[in-house]
Protein backbone atom coordinates (compact mmCIF):
# COMPACT_ATOMS: atom_id res chain seq x y z
CA UNK A 1 0.00 0.00 0.00
CA UNK A 2 1.51 3.38 -0.98
CA UNK A 3 1.96 6.19 1.52
CA UNK A 4 2.14 9.94 1.30
CA UNK A 5 5.56 11.45 1.76
CA UNK A 6 4.40 13.65 4.66
CA UNK A 7 3.04 10.60 6.51
CA UNK A 8 6.17 8.57 5.83
CA UNK A 9 8.36 11.40 7.06
CA UNK A 10 6.38 11.66 10.31
CA UNK A 11 6.47 7.90 10.82
CA UNK A 12 10.22 7.70 10.27
CA UNK A 13 10.81 10.54 12.73
CA UNK A 14 8.71 8.72 15.31
CA UNK A 15 10.91 5.65 14.83
CA UNK A 16 13.99 7.71 15.68
CA UNK A 17 15.29 8.59 12.25
CA UNK A 18 16.40 12.08 11.26
CA UNK A 19 14.82 13.37 8.05
CA UNK A 20 16.55 16.33 6.42
CA UNK A 21 15.36 18.40 3.44
CA UNK A 22 17.05 18.19 0.02
CA UNK A 23 19.98 20.34 -0.88
CA UNK A 24 19.31 21.24 -4.48
CA UNK A 25 17.72 17.99 -5.65
CA UNK A 26 14.38 16.36 -4.91
CA UNK A 27 15.51 13.70 -2.45
CA UNK A 28 15.12 14.11 1.29
CA UNK A 29 17.49 12.15 3.49
CA UNK A 30 16.56 9.69 6.17
CA UNK A 31 19.48 9.13 8.53
CA UNK A 32 20.16 6.76 11.39
CA UNK A 33 23.56 6.10 12.97
CA UNK A 34 25.29 7.94 10.13
CA UNK A 35 23.65 5.77 7.45
CA UNK A 36 21.71 7.66 4.78
CA UNK A 37 18.78 6.63 2.64
CA UNK A 38 17.37 9.13 0.11
CA UNK A 39 13.59 9.62 -0.04
CA UNK A 40 12.14 10.74 -3.39
CA UNK A 41 9.78 13.71 -3.03
CA UNK A 42 9.41 15.16 -6.52
CA UNK A 43 5.81 16.25 -5.80
CA UNK A 44 6.61 17.62 -2.36
CA UNK A 45 4.54 16.45 0.60
CA UNK A 46 1.92 14.98 -1.72
CA UNK A 47 4.30 12.49 -3.34
CA UNK A 48 2.89 8.99 -3.21
CA UNK A 49 5.67 6.65 -2.11
CA UNK A 50 5.39 3.13 -3.47
CA UNK A 51 5.36 -0.05 -1.41
CA UNK A 52 8.69 -1.12 -2.88
CA UNK A 53 10.33 1.99 -1.47
CA UNK A 54 8.84 1.47 1.99
CA UNK A 55 10.21 -2.09 2.03
CA UNK A 56 13.60 -0.70 0.98
CA UNK A 57 13.67 1.73 3.93
CA UNK A 58 12.78 -1.05 6.34
CA UNK A 59 15.52 -3.31 4.94
CA UNK A 60 18.10 -0.54 5.11
CA UNK A 61 17.45 0.52 8.71
CA UNK A 62 16.37 -2.93 9.96
CA UNK A 63 12.88 -1.68 10.82
CA UNK A 64 9.84 -3.89 11.04
CA UNK A 65 7.44 -3.24 8.19
CA UNK A 66 4.44 -3.69 10.48
CA UNK A 67 5.75 -1.09 12.95
CA UNK A 68 6.16 1.42 10.15
CA UNK A 69 2.74 0.55 8.70
CA UNK A 70 1.06 1.24 12.05
CA UNK A 71 2.51 4.74 12.14
CA UNK A 72 1.53 5.64 8.58
Amino acid at each position, binding site marked *: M*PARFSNLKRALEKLGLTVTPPNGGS*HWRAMLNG*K*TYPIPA*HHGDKTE*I*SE*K*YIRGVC*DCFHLKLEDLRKLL
Partner: protein
Amino acid sequence: MSGLIGIPFQPKRYRRRLHRSRLIRASGESILRIGYLRLKSNTMNTREYNFWFVLQRAEDVPGEWTAHCLELDVVSQGTSLRHALAMLNEACFITVCDDIFAGRDPLDRRAPARYWDELYKIVGEGKKADFSTLEESKVRSIGRQVQIKCLLMQPAIRPVKVQHRPKVPLAWTEPATAQACCG
Protein backbone atom coordinates in the same frame (compact mmCIF):
# COMPACT_ATOMS: atom_id res chain seq x y z
CA MET B 1 52.27 28.06 -5.35
CA SER B 2 48.59 28.65 -4.82
CA GLY B 3 46.53 25.80 -3.38
CA LEU B 4 43.50 26.77 -5.43
CA ILE B 5 42.92 24.95 -8.67
CA GLY B 6 42.60 27.17 -11.71
CA ILE B 7 43.21 30.36 -9.79
CA PRO B 8 46.52 32.12 -10.43
CA PHE B 9 48.77 33.33 -7.67
CA GLN B 10 47.05 35.95 -5.55
CA PRO B 11 48.25 38.10 -2.68
CA LYS B 12 48.01 36.24 0.65
CA ARG B 13 45.34 38.50 2.12
CA TYR B 14 43.06 38.05 -0.90
CA ARG B 15 43.52 34.29 -0.84
CA ARG B 16 42.44 34.12 2.78
CA ARG B 17 39.29 36.10 2.06
CA LEU B 18 38.46 33.82 -0.87
CA HIS B 19 38.82 30.70 1.28
CA ARG B 20 36.58 32.13 3.96
CA SER B 21 33.79 33.02 1.51
CA ARG B 22 33.77 29.51 0.01
CA LEU B 23 33.81 27.98 3.45
CA ILE B 24 30.61 29.78 4.39
CA ARG B 25 28.90 28.39 1.33
CA ALA B 26 29.92 24.84 2.19
CA SER B 27 27.42 24.29 4.93
CA GLY B 28 28.08 20.69 5.83
CA GLU B 29 26.27 18.89 3.05
CA SER B 30 28.21 16.23 1.24
CA ILE B 31 27.81 17.51 -2.31
CA LEU B 32 28.95 20.95 -1.29
CA ARG B 33 31.75 19.43 0.72
CA ILE B 34 33.20 18.10 -2.53
CA GLY B 35 33.38 21.68 -3.72
CA TYR B 36 35.04 22.69 -0.50
CA LEU B 37 37.57 19.89 -0.67
CA ARG B 38 38.34 20.77 -4.26
CA LEU B 39 39.44 24.21 -3.19
CA LYS B 40 42.10 23.09 -0.78
CA SER B 41 43.13 19.88 -2.43
CA ASN B 42 46.09 18.89 -4.49
CA THR B 43 45.44 15.16 -4.75
CA MET B 44 42.57 13.40 -6.48
CA ASN B 45 41.45 9.97 -7.48
CA THR B 46 38.60 8.56 -9.52
CA ARG B 47 36.31 5.77 -8.45
CA GLU B 48 34.11 3.97 -10.91
CA TYR B 49 31.06 1.99 -9.90
CA ASN B 50 29.01 -0.27 -12.11
CA PHE B 51 25.46 -0.51 -10.87
CA TRP B 52 22.52 -2.58 -12.00
CA PHE B 53 19.24 -0.67 -12.07
CA VAL B 54 15.87 -2.39 -12.26
CA LEU B 55 13.10 -0.10 -13.48
CA GLN B 56 9.52 -1.25 -13.11
CA ARG B 57 6.09 0.19 -13.45
CA ALA B 58 4.79 0.85 -9.92
CA GLU B 59 1.80 -1.41 -9.39
CA ASP B 60 0.40 0.53 -6.42
CA VAL B 61 0.96 4.10 -7.65
CA PRO B 62 -0.57 4.68 -11.08
CA GLY B 63 1.61 6.54 -13.56
CA GLU B 64 4.79 6.11 -11.55
CA TRP B 65 7.89 4.07 -12.26
CA THR B 66 10.09 2.66 -9.51
CA ALA B 67 13.82 2.32 -9.96
CA HIS B 68 16.00 0.11 -7.79
CA CYS B 69 19.79 0.11 -7.65
CA LEU B 70 20.73 -3.41 -6.59
CA GLU B 71 24.32 -2.80 -5.51
CA LEU B 72 23.37 0.07 -3.20
CA ASP B 73 19.87 -1.21 -2.39
CA VAL B 74 18.45 2.26 -3.00
CA VAL B 75 14.97 2.76 -4.43
CA SER B 76 13.62 5.87 -6.09
CA GLN B 77 10.67 6.67 -8.30
CA GLY B 78 9.61 9.03 -11.04
CA THR B 79 6.70 9.98 -13.24
CA SER B 80 8.20 8.39 -16.36
CA LEU B 81 10.90 5.92 -17.28
CA ARG B 82 13.49 8.63 -17.88
CA HIS B 83 12.46 10.57 -14.81
CA ALA B 84 12.79 7.47 -12.64
CA LEU B 85 16.26 6.86 -14.06
CA ALA B 86 17.29 10.47 -13.37
CA MET B 87 15.88 10.25 -9.83
CA LEU B 88 17.79 7.04 -9.14
CA ASN B 89 21.00 8.58 -10.46
CA GLU B 90 20.53 11.41 -7.98
CA ALA B 91 19.74 9.00 -5.13
CA CYS B 92 22.83 6.90 -5.93
CA PHE B 93 25.01 9.98 -6.01
CA ILE B 94 23.75 11.06 -2.59
CA THR B 95 24.28 7.59 -1.14
CA VAL B 96 27.78 7.15 -2.57
CA CYS B 97 28.87 10.62 -1.43
CA ASP B 98 27.51 10.18 2.09
CA ASP B 99 29.06 6.73 2.47
CA ILE B 100 32.46 7.87 1.26
CA PHE B 101 32.45 10.88 3.57
CA ALA B 102 31.38 8.69 6.48
CA GLY B 103 34.28 6.33 5.71
CA ARG B 104 32.06 3.42 4.64
CA ASP B 105 32.19 1.31 1.51
CA PRO B 106 29.03 2.07 -0.53
CA LEU B 107 29.03 -1.48 -1.88
CA ASP B 108 28.44 -2.92 1.58
CA ARG B 109 24.70 -2.37 1.18
CA ARG B 110 23.55 -4.98 -1.28
CA ALA B 111 19.96 -5.77 -2.14
CA PRO B 112 18.52 -9.10 -0.91
CA ALA B 113 18.69 -12.09 -3.25
CA ARG B 114 15.02 -11.88 -4.27
CA TYR B 115 15.67 -8.59 -6.10
CA TRP B 116 18.67 -10.07 -7.92
CA ASP B 117 16.50 -12.98 -9.01
CA GLU B 118 14.14 -10.46 -10.62
CA LEU B 119 17.06 -8.98 -12.54
CA TYR B 120 18.28 -12.41 -13.68
CA LYS B 121 14.77 -13.13 -14.91
CA ILE B 122 14.63 -9.87 -16.88
CA VAL B 123 18.11 -10.36 -18.35
CA GLY B 124 17.47 -14.04 -19.11
CA GLU B 125 14.03 -13.75 -20.64
CA GLY B 126 13.99 -10.20 -21.93
CA LYS B 127 15.16 -8.67 -25.17
CA LYS B 128 18.17 -6.45 -25.61
CA ALA B 129 17.09 -2.92 -26.49
CA ASP B 130 18.41 0.58 -26.83
CA PHE B 131 17.22 2.59 -23.83
CA SER B 132 16.86 5.83 -25.77
CA THR B 133 14.37 4.30 -28.20
CA LEU B 134 12.29 2.38 -25.65
CA GLU B 135 8.60 3.17 -25.57
CA GLU B 136 7.13 3.27 -22.10
CA SER B 137 3.80 1.81 -23.10
CA LYS B 138 5.38 -1.38 -24.41
CA VAL B 139 7.57 -2.36 -21.46
CA ARG B 140 6.89 -3.31 -17.87
CA SER B 141 10.32 -3.87 -16.40
CA ILE B 142 13.84 -3.03 -17.47
CA GLY B 143 17.26 -4.07 -16.25
CA ARG B 144 19.98 -1.61 -17.04
CA GLN B 145 23.64 -1.29 -16.15
CA VAL B 146 24.89 2.16 -15.28
CA GLN B 147 28.39 3.34 -14.60
CA ILE B 148 28.91 6.13 -12.11
CA LYS B 149 32.22 7.90 -11.89
CA CYS B 150 33.16 9.81 -8.77
CA LEU B 151 35.99 12.27 -8.86
CA LEU B 152 37.21 12.50 -5.31
CA MET B 153 39.26 15.46 -4.30
CA GLN B 154 41.16 14.78 -1.12
CA PRO B 155 42.54 17.52 1.09
CA ALA B 156 46.23 18.16 0.93
CA ILE B 157 48.17 16.64 3.76
CA ARG B 158 49.89 19.46 5.54
CA PRO B 159 52.98 18.84 7.63
CA VAL B 160 52.10 19.17 11.29
CA LYS B 161 54.60 20.86 13.55
CA VAL B 162 55.27 18.57 16.48
CA GLN B 163 57.39 19.70 19.38
CA HIS B 164 59.29 16.84 20.97
CA ARG B 165 59.59 17.23 24.68
CA PRO B 166 61.11 13.99 25.93
CA LYS B 167 60.85 13.42 29.66
CA VAL B 168 64.12 11.47 29.72
CA PRO B 169 67.04 13.45 28.26
CA LEU B 170 68.47 11.84 25.15
CA ALA B 171 72.03 13.01 25.76
CA TRP B 172 74.01 13.68 28.88
CA THR B 173 75.88 16.92 28.75
CA GLU B 174 77.36 17.15 32.21
CA PRO B 175 81.00 16.16 32.38
CA ALA B 176 80.53 13.73 35.26
CA THR B 177 77.95 11.69 33.34
CA ALA B 178 79.98 11.81 30.17
CA GLN B 179 82.91 10.37 32.02
CA ALA B 180 80.75 7.62 33.48
CA CYS B 181 79.48 6.69 30.05
CA CYS B 182 82.93 6.60 28.52
CA GLY B 183 84.51 4.73 31.40
